[in-house]
């Protein structure tokens, strides 16, 4: 008897059976997913070249959700259930924000390679709260001047004053992130990024407006990279190795400088969620990312390159050259941390940034 000849009730029962089996499979798959690792990440962590070795070695699926900016990341967490997320990438200076909200689990320092980190990027002031370590720096770099060395005089890029002079008017893009660029404006007017107060805002605003008057555009990551790579602009304020290193093969003319006034150090950390249902795997993931191999893969991620925090990262000589690995001690000595304003000053800084964007 063929299937077509079966009575309708039999066919219905058969199909219901198939549906039940499919449902059971889905439930099983759902159960398997509960054991997966759920990571709130920046785009550099979604590179398969970074994730696959970890997934294969640990027989686990890493589910990633990308976000940009701590505010957006914390908003995702606020809309999630406790336990939905296992690990999070966060600006090192923002680790205390997560701790204040009761999100993070202290990290076991003895199980992580803190001794191998560049000392300047451990960021103890922000990654340690009440004597407990909540974040580990995994990658860092500089918001400084990215430029095309065939179009501009590299000597000019040794001073932030060149960004507000007439020589490169209309050849400049500004990276659209208020904190590092405000930090650069602070360096340009001789202020320390860590000491900024509300009283500094008028001078900072004046400097930002001078930069804007010279700029062709203010763009987020992709727009900034595209503008520099396509020759739309020759200089990127706030750029650095995170823009130029990844494009080095296609466009070796792109480079970055650390001006004499200094640069702003960006640093991203990994944190583990207190409510993670999979803390062992979360720790394994952090250990993998901080291992020499994981660090090399993260540093050269297809989304953007950056310096590995672990000084023993397994980078090739060519990769080290592109990242200017050997020059880091000098760079770090001149770099200052991101401004870390309190909530009130942060709001005022963002409003100042909005005014700068609207300025014609």
């Amino acid at each position, binding site marked *: 008897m063929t299937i077509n000849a079966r009575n309708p009730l039999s066919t219905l029962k058969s199909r219901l059976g198939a549906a039940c089996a499919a449902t059971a499979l889905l439930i099983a798959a759902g159960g398997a997913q509960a054991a997966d690792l759920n990571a709130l990440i920046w785009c550099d962590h979604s590179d398969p070249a970074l994730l696959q070795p970890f997934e294969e070695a640990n027989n686990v699926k890493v589910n990633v959700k990308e976000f*940009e*900016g*701590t*505010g*957006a990341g*914390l*908003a995702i967490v*606020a809309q999630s259930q406790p336990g939905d997320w296992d690990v999070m990438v966060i600006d090192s200076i923002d680790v205390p924000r997560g701790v204040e909200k009761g999100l993070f689990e202290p990290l076991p320092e003895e199980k992580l390679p803190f001794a191998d980190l560049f000392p300047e990027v451990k960021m103890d002031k922000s990654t340690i709260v009440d004597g407990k370590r909540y974040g580990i720096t995994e990658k860092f770099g500089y918001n400084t001047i990215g430029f095309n060395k065939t179009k501009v005089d590299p000597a000019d890029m040794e001073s932030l004053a060149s960004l507000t002079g007439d020589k490169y008017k*209309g050849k400049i893009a500004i990276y*659209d992130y*208020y904190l590092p660029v405000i930090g650069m404006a602070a360096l340009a007017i001789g202020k320390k990024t860590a000491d900024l107060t509300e009283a500094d805002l008028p001078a900072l605003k004046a400097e930002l407006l001078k930069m804007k008057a010279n700029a*062709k*555009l*203010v*763009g*987020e990551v992709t*727009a900034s990279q*595209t*503008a520099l790579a*396509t*020759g*739309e602009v020759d200089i990127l304020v706030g750029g650095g190795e995170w823009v130029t290193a990844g494009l080095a093969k296609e466009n070796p003319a792109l480079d970055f400088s650390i001006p004499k006034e200094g640069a702003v150090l960006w640093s991203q950390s990994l944190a583990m969620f207190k409510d993670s249902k999979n803390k062992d795997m979360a720790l394994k993931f952090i250990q993998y990312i901080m291992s020499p191999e994981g660090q090399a893969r993260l540093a050269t991620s297809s989304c953007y390159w950056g310096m590995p925090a672990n000084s023993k990262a397994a980078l090739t000589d060519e990769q080290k050259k592109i990242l200017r690995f050997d020059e880091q001690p000098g760079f770090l000595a001149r770099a200052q941390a991101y401004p870390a304003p309190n*909530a009130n000053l*942060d*709001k005022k800084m*963002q*409003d100042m940034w*909005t*005014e700068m*964007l*609207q300025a*014609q």
Partner: protein
Amino acid sequence: MSVSGGNSRALPWALVTPALAWTLLFFVLPFIAMGLSSLTAHEGGRFTLANYSQFFTDASYWRAMVNSLEVTTIVTVISILLAYPFAWILAEMVPERWQRLALMLAVLPFWTSYVVRSYSWLLVLAQNGVINRALTGIGLTAEPLQLANTRLATVTGFVHFFVMLLTLTIFANLKQLSPSYRKAAADLGAGPVRTFLHVVLPLTLPGIMVGAFLTFVLCIGDYITPQILGGNNELVMPQLVMMQIGRRGDFPLASALSIILMAVVTIAYLACARWLKIERA
């Protein structure tokens, strides 16, 4: 008797319940949540009107609304001016058997990703893009013009999209127009221009208005095109909303700005609806 009366009353309610439930779940409740959120402080969650007062007292916030209205108005007007002749040619001059193919070709841009289309325009308008190369190549300009990262670029990206939308609504209106109107006008001695101005155009105004309203709503609420093509050299309202969420996670201020934007769209809708009502009357 009473049972059947009850059934007859219950049936319409049963039929509209799914739609009502959908609207309640996915519009009314989120809107109430957004309204409540807009009245709370970002820090502490206490009741406040500060999120609204920020908009009305901060010039850069207010400027974003002005920019939005200016860009939307320019886009809507240019799109109508381009779409009407296009729809006219499609409806009146293209043979009936080719109209379907022509319409399909006209809406082809809809098939590509909105983001990809915007980035494509960025490359076309860039300093080293097709237009600037052509202009400098034939000697019309000595230096490349700044086309990308300007309001012009934003308007171009929008118009490319909305001309297609308006063409569809106007084309549909033109096709519904009975030829006897024009024959009657001709019988009464009206020439083609007079017939168009006094007969065809007024009768196709509803199609224009519907398309213009859709253009207005979609354009004023769009974030992608100004973000990619405008170069952040001026902010429009959706960008301002996104800034509050992406940078500081300030949902209350973002909610207040969204409600203000929604109020503007509602006013536009009411004006459009009132005008259409007057026209029908």
